[in-house]
């Protein structure tokens, strides 16, 4: 990690100096994070290091009763006529979740690839396979064709929050408040979506964020809680700066951290990055979820120190490097977090296996085609 992005430097300056950490009664070691991450609670249980199948599931047991939930996101469905691979993987994830019968399933965004009505409706159809309670937050791919109209109609609006067995769950919308990059250029909805779709595009700018209004909502929503109550915040994007050039962040992370600072037991679970990630910043821990569709390379700057990276992916196997997650909040007030990765061992020990140091010289510059003003 030779370079640190200027924004990350700022993050380290703002939050790194503080002694504050997520509640240390909930110890989490890198070792336990291997296959089972203990995200809340007193006792670090004996973790088992077996490999999981292919989904992201989270099991939470809290207080007297156990609580389980599953996370699925980033299915990036295309119309069936174009690509059945992603459909197959979504079907598999939903089937596995259904057989697990969790208390609820969170779908964490990027259901569709191009926000196309055909894709979103296909997704809604496939989601019927899961009969437990379902909650939803949008991804940018679901939003920028019709500005969230169909998504909201099918899956409701966010943010939202609810309490279940002593845990406070929050779902945020980190995608819908992009600064307007389309009007001045008279973009068609398809062009707008096209720029949003490109991870390495420079036209859509720093689109990921909560916005003032939602920040206020979050502040108010948490304000009634006991400071040590377990809080799980779902967001599509990570709530810290992992890698701004790919929008692996929210632009208003400072405000988010300001708001959650008084609470000692905050866990952020996010999608969008399509890879195994773990980080602790200030009072909040963040866990990145697998996509079911395809995995992304780790950022050129490398991974957060606390992340145990996943193993290099075999591009010839569509079921490699992807999956869902399972979380269990146990009696000891801890969360067991399982990555359910299909087809492969999840973690890598050596950098040659993770590939986290593979792109040291990658040029950080905007795409040449983005520099051309195509809209007269």
């Amino acid at each position, binding site marked *: 990690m030779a370079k640190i992005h200027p924004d990350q430097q700022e993050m380290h300056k703002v939050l790194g100096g503080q002694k504050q950490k997520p509640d240390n009664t909930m110890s989490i070691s890198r070792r336990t994070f291997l296959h089972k991450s203990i995200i809340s609670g007193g006792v670090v249980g004996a973790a088992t290091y077996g490999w999981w199948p292919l989904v992201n599931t989270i099991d939470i047991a809290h207080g007297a009763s156990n609580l389980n939930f599953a996370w699925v996101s980033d299915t990036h469905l295309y119309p069936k006529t174009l690509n059945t691979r992603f459909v197959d993987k979504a079907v598999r994830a939903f089937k596995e979740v259904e057989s697990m019968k969790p208390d609820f399933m969170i779908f964490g965004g990027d259901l569709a690839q191009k926000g196309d009505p055909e894709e979103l409706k296909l997704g809604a159809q496939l989601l019927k396979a899961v009969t437990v309670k379902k909650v939803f937050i949008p991804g940018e791919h679901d939003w920028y064709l019709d500005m969230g109209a169909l998504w909201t109609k099918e899956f409701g609006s966010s943010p939202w929050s609810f309490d279940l067995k002593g845990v406070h769950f929050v779902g945020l919308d980190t995608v819908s408040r992009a600064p307007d990059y389309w009007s001045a250029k008279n973009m068609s909805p398809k062009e707008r979506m096209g720029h949003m779709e490109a991870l390495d595009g420079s036209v859509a700018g720093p689109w990921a964020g909560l916005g003032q209004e939602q920040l206020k909502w979050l502040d108010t929503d948490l304000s009634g809680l006991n400071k040590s109550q377990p809080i799980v915040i779902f967001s599509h994007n990570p709530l810290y700066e992992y890698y701004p050039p790919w929008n692996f962040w929210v632009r208003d992370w400072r405000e988010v951290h300001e708001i959650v600072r008084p609470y000692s037991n905050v866990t952020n679970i996010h999608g969008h990055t399509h890879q195994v990630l773990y980080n602790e910043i200030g009072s909040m821990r963040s866990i990145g979820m697998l996509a079911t569709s395809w995995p992304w390379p780790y950022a050129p700057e490398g991974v957060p120190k606390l992340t145990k990276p996943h193993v290099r992916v075999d591009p010839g196997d569509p079921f490699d490097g992807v999956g869902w997650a399972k979380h269990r909040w146990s009696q000891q007030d801890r969360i067991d977090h399982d990555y359910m990765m299909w087809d492969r061992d999840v973690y890598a020990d050596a950098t040659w296996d993770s590939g986290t140091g593979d792109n040291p010289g990658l*040029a950080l510059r905007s795409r040449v085609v983005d520099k051309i003003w195509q809209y007269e």
Partner: protein
Amino acid sequence: MLKNKSKIIWIITVTSLFVGVTLFLLTPVSAHKKRHSAADMQAFDDAYMEVVKMGDALFHGGGPQDELGITLSKTGMACAMCHPFASDVHPHQFPKFQEQMSEVAGLREMINWCIEKPNEGVMIGIDSEAMVALEAYIMWSHKGTIIEPGTH
């Protein structure tokens, strides 16, 4: 004496050969021997960047695929969706042993492998315009990276 005479002839022969070769070299017979103006350099760079741009477009799923008669993907996915900014393409590591092929392979072979496998597309000619463009874009994205052939 005879010895001296042949020595002189030898010297004259060598000298004229040398002068001839030197004159030949100094004559602007090929473009390489001409001094380049700033405008020339700009023209070279423009030509190069045109190819980089085409590679960028192809790598992102667009570009003149129809005109070139090529299909880089049949899944709807473009290279850049898995390789943002051409990350994880590792052009600086080639040639290297490639597990997928059980042999030491070059970058272009691996580009074709990715066209065929994850993309379910149709392999392109190893010296084709599209291949050169993809390579140009990938290399441009890694400008300044230290070459480390054979690393994994």
